[in-house]
């Protein structure tokens, strides 16, 4: 368990209040040397029940807050807990090494794999170094370079996605952010090796999809994945970024929504209170899911893998087809 004092989400306030009461009573009991263990146990049970209740009734916006929690495990923390012998490889061979995107080699339960993902910082200093986990074009080019390398050596690819969005900045545009993301998406569709993508935190639009095309797409219970940031959507719809809680209701961005929309394959459950309450346990649940999904994929021929991956994305889209009286003309 980590220290929660520094950051608390609004909807957890009743929990914090109960925790405070419990502490006070413990202190009081100690001071006056009276046994209040019964009272404390009663309050602790109440806290546990309340926590379960809160976490079973989370709104979409509350989930977004958990996904953005500053203590949510980052890529490198997950990698250390899920994989063994991680060896980071650097650079896109074109411009520079992007610290916001990390990739390298590792073993998943003894199987050599390539791991790629965005890296957020833990504190301000690290966040500045990591550009708050928002990759530049060279980040996507590095990721693609490593993924192509994986395909060459028939290594499965695991991507862990946690990104607000690909970086919107002058240099990013100068170096072709759009092209870097697009090429990665296109080439991932054709890499002849199993790919599993896991959205662990924020799934920020093209910045997420840029490393998010896979044979299986899994999503942590409190992660979100959206075409536009909730704030961006709110400013367009209601001219006010503060309406973001309403925007996520309309955009339907949670793991449950995406499973229903058949965009993801599975929801990976998180420990009560979110991944940051028990990173180790979260990592074990992710690892189990990765092994379970990867094992059958390893038996696929390259042809079957690519055909099924194509079909997976080919069928996404909701429309109706009416008879058209203007189907052809000319000659």
């Amino acid at each position, binding site marked *: 368990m980590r220290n929660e004092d520094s950051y608390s989400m609004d909807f957890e306030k009743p929990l914090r209040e109960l925790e405070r009461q419990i502490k006070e009573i413990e202190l009081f009991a100690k001071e006056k040397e009276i046994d209040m263990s019964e009272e404390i146990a009663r309050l602790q049970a109440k806290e546990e029940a309340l926590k379960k209740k809160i976490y079973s009734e989370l709104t979409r916006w509350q989930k977004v807050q958990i996904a953005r929690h500053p203590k949510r495990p980052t890529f490198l923390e997950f990698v250390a807990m899920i994989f063994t012998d991680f060896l980071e490889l650097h650079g896109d061979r074109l411009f520079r090494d992007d610290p916001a995107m990390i990739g390298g080699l590792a073993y998943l339960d003894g199987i050599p794999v390539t791991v790629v993902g965005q890296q957020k910082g833990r504190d301000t200093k690290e966040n500045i170094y990591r550009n708050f986990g928002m990759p530049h074009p060279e980040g996507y080019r590095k990721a693609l370079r490593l993924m192509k390398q994986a395909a060459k050596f028939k290594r499965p690819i695991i991507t862990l996605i946690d990104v607000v969005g690909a970086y919107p900045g002058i240099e990013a545009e100068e170096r072709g952010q759009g092209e870097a993301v697009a090429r990665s998406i296109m080439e991932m*569709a054709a890499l002849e090796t199993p790919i599993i993508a896991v959205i662990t935190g924020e799934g920020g639009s093209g910045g997420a999809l840029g490393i998010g095309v896979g044979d299986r797409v899994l999503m942590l219970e409190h992660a979100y994945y959206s075409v536009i940031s909730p704030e961006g959507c709110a400013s367009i719809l209601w001219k006010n970024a503060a309406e973001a809680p309403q925007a996520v209701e309309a955009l339907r961005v949670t793991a449950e929504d995406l499973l229903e929309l058949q965009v993801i394959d599975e929801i990976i459950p998180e420990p009560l209170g979110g991944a940051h309450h028990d990173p180790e346990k979260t990592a074990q649940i992710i690892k189990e899911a990765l092994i379970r999904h990867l094992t059958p994929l390893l038996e696929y021929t390259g042809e079957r893998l690519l055909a099924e991956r194509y079909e997976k994305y080919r069928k996404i889209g909701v429309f109706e087809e009416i008879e058209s009286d203007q189907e052809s003309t000319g000659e």
Partner: protein
Amino acid sequence: MPNNSTLYFSRLWQDGEVLSSMLKDLFKPKPKYVTIRRPEERGIQPGQPEKKELPDGLWVKCNNCRQIIYHKDLEANLKVCPKCNYHFRLRAGERIAYLFDAGSVQESNSGLISKNPLGFPEYEEKVEKARKRTGLNEGVITGVAKVKNIPCVFSVMDFGFMGGSMGSVVGEKISRAFEYAAEHNLPVVSVTAGGGGARMQEGIISLMQMAKTCQALNRLQEKGIFYLSILTDPTMGGVFASFASLGDVVIAEPGALIGFAGPRVIEQTIRQTLPPGFQRSEFLLEHGIIDLIVERKNLRETVARLLRFHQRDQVGKEEVSKDA
């Protein structure tokens, strides 16, 4: 290139009657002018900068140099300001008329209609309005056509249809176009115009259209079939970050706004004013992101040249098209 303006006139279609008017053209080969309709009929959305569209009347004020242009002069000049070379935005029908051989255009999949997969507020109403205003069922026209007698598959987006955004139907039609081209060994000419990129109202489903179109494009690339991407004002976000930026050759019209993130988002992120010319075609050319900037008056010729270079049975031959 001979003066094609008379041909262009005969090819101009009225908004919303793209194909029926084409048929009429066959029987009535007289010059025909586009009727400039009122803004509310012309697909101007609330909040959308109206200055980009042509106002009513005989005279038009250029968005760039602010000079007054005689409307017929502007039409004759392919909607490019004769004084400052500002390229006005085109409707998909106009673009098709300017680019492809008269009578060669066969539209496909025009009966695809958007639904509301998320139950997004007011989405159906917005689509319905856009359909009424543009006469199109969705924001892209796809099909087969010829450019100076060279056949190709085309997709042309219409900015007037919800800002040229890509939802399920746009993604589906473009994917089908790529697949058709791969199957029939035909080159693809794509013209994009999308201010927002992926269509917000279809949420994650529209984001996935980026993957769907890109993978379909990949089939084309693997078969060694030529794909020409023409970027027009504006091509942004999810449209730019998918099939639009992946052309074997990427062309932009002069002065078009092209980029990944919107200028306002960038300004808010970096808290700086953006340099002049940022994310314009010339900026992209300078930074090596596009191959060419081609003025509208030369576009048809350039497209034909590029298609000719990539004709498989033409390898080794420099052929001059006679029917230009």
